[in-house]
Structures are given as structure tokens and as C-alpha cells.
């Protein structure tokens, strides 16, 4: 039975079983590889996407349970038309290997949507589920503050 999803504003169908995690539907079925696999057990945040605007671990959401519109890193902005937060990430030269960064950015975007002027403590609380083995945290923090100041005007 086909399941219908809305991803980045597009309607997409899949025949995969309903228990397949959204992460693997996006990556292997829809070819949307911007969302990354890191642990599969909700311990790293690399797979973070938005469902109805809120950050979720896509490795933990079964296809049959997706309750709203999905936004992935590809839906946030493109190299030629970046979202403000992506531009801040670029300005601060955040990424090293980069594998965690889609998830970091989606998590941070969700934070800023709820809290346009986060304190360092707010950033700690919101971002601690997102692991970065390359240790880019200082620049992530700077980029979030930068994006907050730009979005807030």
C-alpha cells in the first residue's frame, strides 16, 4: 500500500513497509541524501529533519507515523539560495568533515524558530543531542548567534 508524504513541499509516494524509518525512506527511496545516518538510535542527531517545523530524529520516526509536512536540509536552502542560517554556517566556516552538519543546521533552525534570541544556555540545551566528532562546536555556537542577530534584524 502506498504511503504519501509531503517533503519540502512536494508530494511523494512510496510502497515501502510502514515501519521503515523516515531517514531510510528519504535516503534510499527518494534519493534525498542530505539527511545523514549516524547511529540509528537517536544518539547523534545526524538524521534531524523538521516535521511541521519542529526538529525530529528521522531514524526514530516510522514511515507510517509521519504526522506532518517534512522539511529536510535540501528544503531549507540551496547553494545558490541559502537560508540565513546556512549562510551564517558558511560565513563562520563551520563544517569540517560535514557529516553531522545537516542535522546540526536543522536542529539550530528549529531552535531559532522557537527562540529567536537564544542564550548560550539555550544553545547548550537544544544542541546537546547533536554529536560532532570533528568538534566544530565553537563555530556552531558562533553561527547560531550570528544567524539569530540577522534573523532578528
Amino acid at each position, binding site marked *: 500500500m502506498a504511503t504519501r508524504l509531503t517533503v519540502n513541499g512536494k508530494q511523494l509516494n512510496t510502497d515501502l513497509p510502514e515501519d521503515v524509518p523516515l531517514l531510510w525512506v528519504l535516503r*534510499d527511496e527518494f534519493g534525498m541524501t542530505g539527511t*545523514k545516518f549516524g547511529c540509528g538510535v537517536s*544518539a547523534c542527531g545526524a538524521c534531524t529533519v523538521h516535521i511541521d517545523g519542529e526538529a525530529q530524529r528521522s531514524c526514530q520516526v516510522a514511515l507510517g507515523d509521519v504526522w506532518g509536512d517534512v522539511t529536510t536540509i*535540501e528544503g531549507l536552502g540551496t547553494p545558490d539560495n*541559502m537560508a540565513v542560517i546556512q549562510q551564517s554556517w558558511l560565513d563562520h566556516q563551520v563544517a569540517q568533515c*560535514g557529516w553531522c552538519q545537516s542535522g546540526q543546521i536543522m536542529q539550530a533552525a528549529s531552535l531559532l524558530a522557537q527562540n529567536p534570541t537564544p542564550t548560550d544556555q539555550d544553545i547548550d540545551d537544544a544542541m546537546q543531542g547533536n*554529536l560532532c566528532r570533528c568538534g566544530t562546536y565553537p563555530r556552531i555556537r558562533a553561527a547560531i548567534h550570528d544567524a539569530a542577530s540577522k534573523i532578528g534584524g
Partner: protein
Amino acid sequence: MANIRKIARRTFLIGSAAIVGGAAFGAWYVNRPAENPLKTPEGGAAFNPFVLIDQNGITLIAKHVEMGQGSRTTLAALIAEELDVRLEDVRVLQGQPAQAYYNSALLGELVPGNGYDRGGFAHALGETLGVLGKVLNMQVTGGSSAMKDGFTQMRLAGASAREALKDAAAARLGVAKSQLKTENGQVIAADGTTLAYTELAAEAGQMDLSEPELRPASEWKYIGKSMPRVDMAGKVTGTAQYGMDVRPEGLKFAALRANPKRTGMTKFDASAAETMPGVEGVYDLGDAIAVVANNTWLAMQALEAVEVTWGAALYPNETDQIFARIEQGFDLEANSTMRDDGDAEAGAPTGSLAVEAQYKAPYLAHAAMEPLNATALYTGDAMEIWSGNQGPMLHRQHAAAEAGLTEEQVTLHTPYLGGGFGRRGDFDYTSYVARLAVQMQGTPVMLTWSREEDMRHDFYRPGALARMKGAVKDGRAVLLDGQVSAQSTTVQVMKRWMDFEVGGPDKGHVDAIFNAPYAIENHRVRGYHADVDVPVGAWRSVAASFNAFFQDSFMDEMAHAAGVDPLEFRLQHMREEFPEGAACLEKVREMSAWTGSTPEGVGRGVAFAYSFGTPVAQVVEVVQQDSGIHVNKVWIACDMGTALDPSIIEAQMFGGMVYGLSAAIYEEITFSNGEVEQYNFPDFDATRMHTMPEVEVAILEAQEHLGGAGEPGTPPIAPALANALFDLTGTRARELPLNKTFDFKY
């Protein structure tokens, strides 16, 4: 050439005798230019293995893989500096496997001597030995060597192409070459006429290449500046392509389950798995099973349903037994005595105060963020492979062997690596996918490891033990007699990668301890190869990662025994021995406003390590909070010789530090019943946003030679932190990870 390879394949001495080996190959062989792997494009030119220009644009080739360390950007900037192009106007691609891209600097680390006082002669020897890499097909990214390797070669590549383009323009315009200048991808004549490189390339390709002069540092536009990374836009928009992101037409998805005891497999029953949703086949890979499906997750689910009987481990089953064997290593003959000043055998001199301590460091996994994976398509007489790897020629060679093909029949692509840290030098995941693809002729297949497979089938940082004896008198160290026992990474890696039996003193094994730049009257360092066979490999900074912990924890213990401020104590022994190293210590003293005393509830520690050509000093501050001890701030000073790109170096310094900090506090690989007990991040955690210290990095440029950036930030943090914790609590931790002894904030 076959002959040369045969000579090289004999026992290869890793200590002083290697130089003899290097000389034996002769300049005639190693100086022959390697064949240009780039084909001349339609209407353009491949000037050398690094610069290709045609009507569509300018392409630069990075010889080292990009795993996060930023080398693609800096290698391109070095070419661009002389070629006169802007990075935003060029494409930068990863080099295919080719001898032209061999690493000339990596083996230079094997030169005898401590490195830090390497004079011109020893440095030249290092370069001579480096060319061995060419004989051995070592196209390897590792050893923090990319910049030492590329600094001159890349600039020459840019400059010689630029000169050829000017020759072509001079011929076309009928003016003297001296009237021409170059800028932003164009040749500009005195009358203002501009000719784009893209339209001159075909003619320029016909010009004779001469050895050009390189510009002096005073004229550099890019070198020494923080360049925007060429991989950044892709990485912040999810469009950068990593190994796991390739999608060749008709791709199938497979998952792997290999023996957690690291030997073969007696039997398996896959009948339940075969009928599970999405499953298209179950394959026997000899010592592993692969399930192929229409989705990676469905393949992983089906793998769980396969019943396998695994072979037994070839190493002791339990962690304690493994460490007992490491302990027994001290009873064997020392593999090396790389430092032996004065008379350490005599023990503590009369009138001195003896200090003794033993230390322990665990096995560690790499846990790169992107789990291991590779993709292959086998078509009978050829194979195409996509594998994020740190050694393209090595991976291709082993994939070809799996498929019974020649290396030329295998095309290997190296997409971005979601972290490497040394793990992706090993080629097991590339071999597995090649083995699978052969059984699926005509169908491309991606083989992905779960995080659990990745963590439990690593080539680990070896566990290590140290016995340290010292003595202090009148505020100075008068004896330091260190012994280290561990498995040798060098021996195992050379055997696995190159089929080399290495013998002789293993310098890498005692790195950052034998060459710790402290002048001590009686100073001996002996290395022991423990006789145990847990799979081990290169882990960011290799043996320096544990040796620095032993060395600089013990320096701290001696400082306290001598009643001297630990930072001042180090300086006293280093100022004359290695002024550039001492300057790093002075720098962190200034940055952290070090006074030697801390208020109640605050602790500070300092440590220093010299590795991969770079001295690094770090000061750490810890604070006692209600929820546990928090690492509050780390000050880092390093000396790079020339800082090619300050932003990238800064990122490597704090990134390397965090990698070591995570290990120092949380990480340990243990064994039970022959299997690794850690499965996933909850068992092998790391520093996160809320536990991350503030960092401050200073980059000095006093050294004569270029230092590496990727690894030297890692070794000093474990001892600096242990020393800070001693300052805070009065408890001396001699075993890692430190959460065994202290309660950290979670």
C-alpha cells in the same frame, strides 16, 4: 620496476636502516616523473597531474582526500597562488588513484632523530626517504603530512602552467613574454588585451615546460590567509556527495554483518532472512554475511534474523587478559631505545628524590561520524568503486585482487569522507563491497555498516601501559626512564596494507615520548612490542595519543615532587633544548594568565607534546559544578612554521583537541568473550555542545619547517586535563578514560 618492488618488499627496517634502503633505490628511479594520470581534454591541456584547463574552465586536482581537515582548499590555494586564479572560479576535484599523487612526506616521519632539532641534513634525509612512498605506491592521506607534501609541489604545478600560458599568449600576440602579466585566470598584455586561460589552454599545452621560479612569501596573496573552504557550500546545503550518497542507476542497498571475534565463520542459516520484506538476496562473504535489499534499513533488519556461528578470536577473550599480555611485553627485549642520554640504568642519583608511576591507556575506536560504507559495480572485465578512503591506490589494489582484475580495470572514486581519523586508510570495507559486487555482476550495490558494525569492527588505537621512573633534585629533573608497552600499529598496518614485515626500532611506537623535548641529564626511553593480536590501526596522532599522556602526566608529577610550578618546570627543561616549543608554553601562559594558583573549585593543568612536526602546548581549566566537573576552557598554542591557512589550522587544532578530550573523558573499548563490548554512541560517548569547553588558539610561525595540523592538537589534552584534575582534587589519575576516577558533568 618489478625488481625495485621486490627489494622493497623484503624486510623493511623502520629505524635508521631505512635510510640505507632509501639510498638503495637510487635517484634514477625516484626522480623519474610519474605518468600524468590526466588525459588531454578536447581543446585544452593537462599541464601536469594537478592543473587541467579547457574551454569549460579551470580544474585543479587535490592529491589528498578531503575528510574534514580542509586540505582540498589549501592544496588548491597553493596552486592558485602561482597560477593566478581565484578559488571561486575553479573546480577542485579529488585525484584518481595514481602514482603521481604519492605522498612524499609521510615516510619522512621515519627519519631517525627526534624531529624537533632536525637540521638541514636530517631534513634532506627525510625528503629522500619520502620518495620511498612513490616506490611503495603510497598515495595516502595521513600523518598530518598533506601540507609538507604539497607545499612546493603544488606551487610549482601552478607556476609551470602559468608560464606555459604566457608563452602561448606571447606567441599569439607576437609580443615578448616579459610584457605579459597574469591575473584571475587571464593573461594581460601591456596594451590591455586580455586572453582567458580557457582559450589559450590548447596552445599552451604544446609549449615546453620549464622549471619556473616560485614567488617569495612577500608576494603571496592567498597563502597565509584564511580562504573560504571549497567544500563549505556543499556541506551546509546537504549537496556535498559522500560515499554513502552516491546513487548509480539501479543501485541496490546492502548491509554487513562480520565476525565480532574477527576471524571466519563456521556456518550460517539465512532462511528466515530471505523471506523478509525488501530482501533480494543473502550473500556469503567468507567471514561476513551481506543482505541485499531495496532499502538499507530493511537489509539491516534481515541481517538480525540470520543465525551465524562465528570462529573464535585470535586474541585473548577478555580485556584483563589482553592487558596482562601487554604487561608481559615489558619482559621481552626492548624493540627500541630511541633515547639514551647519561646513565638512566643507574637509577636515581644520590641526593635526588625518586618519583615512580605507572599509567594505562585503553583501546579506542575511531567512530567517524559517517559509518563505513562503499559501493561497487562489477561488469566482468571492469569494476567501478565509490569509497571514501584515505589511500586510493591501496584501496584500488585490494579491490582489484578481490575481483581478480588488474588495477587498471578498476576505477575508484573518492567522494567526501564523513571523517577518517585514520580508520579509512584500512580497506576492509572496500574489499567487502568488491567481494559482494563480483557475486552481483551487472548490478551496483552499496554496502553500509551499521554504527554497531563500525564500532565493533574497527582497527583500534592500541591499549598501552607505561612504567615511568624519574628523580628530581634542586628543582630539576635529573632522571627520566620511561618504558612503553603496546601493540605496534606500524607493524600491523604495514603488514596489512603493504604485505611488509617490518623490523628494527619502531620510532612511531614511542612518538611524543622519546622525542619529548626536555633536557634531562639521565634520560632513556624504551619501547616494547606487546605480543597480542587485537586488530589495531592508525588513530588520530597514533602512538603520540597515549605517549603524551604518559610523558606529560609524569612531568607534572615530577614538577610537584620538585616543588616547582608545572609550567615553569617544563620551561626550565625546554628553553634551550627546543626554543620553539618553549615559546608555545610561554604563549599559553600569557593567554591563560597562568599564575600557578587557582581559587577553590577551579583547577588548571598544562601539557605539551611534539608530534608530526608541530609543538603544541595546552592549558586546561576545570571547574567543579553541582552536576559534576566541567571542562571550562582550553588555551592552545602551536607552531606551524608557516601558517598556510589560519582558519583551517585553528579548526584542526581545536578539533583535534576535542577528539582527544572525548577519548580522555569518556572512551574505552573493552572485550568480553572475544567481542568488543561497545556498540554505539551511548557506550562510547563524546564531548557535546554542553560539555564543550571554550577554546582559544594561537598560531606561531617560528619553526623553520612546516608542521602538520590534523593530529598534533590531539595528544596534549589528556595529560593537560589529568593535570588540571589533580590541581582541582588532589587525586592523580593514571588511567584513561578519566570518568573512571572523576564525576564529570553530563
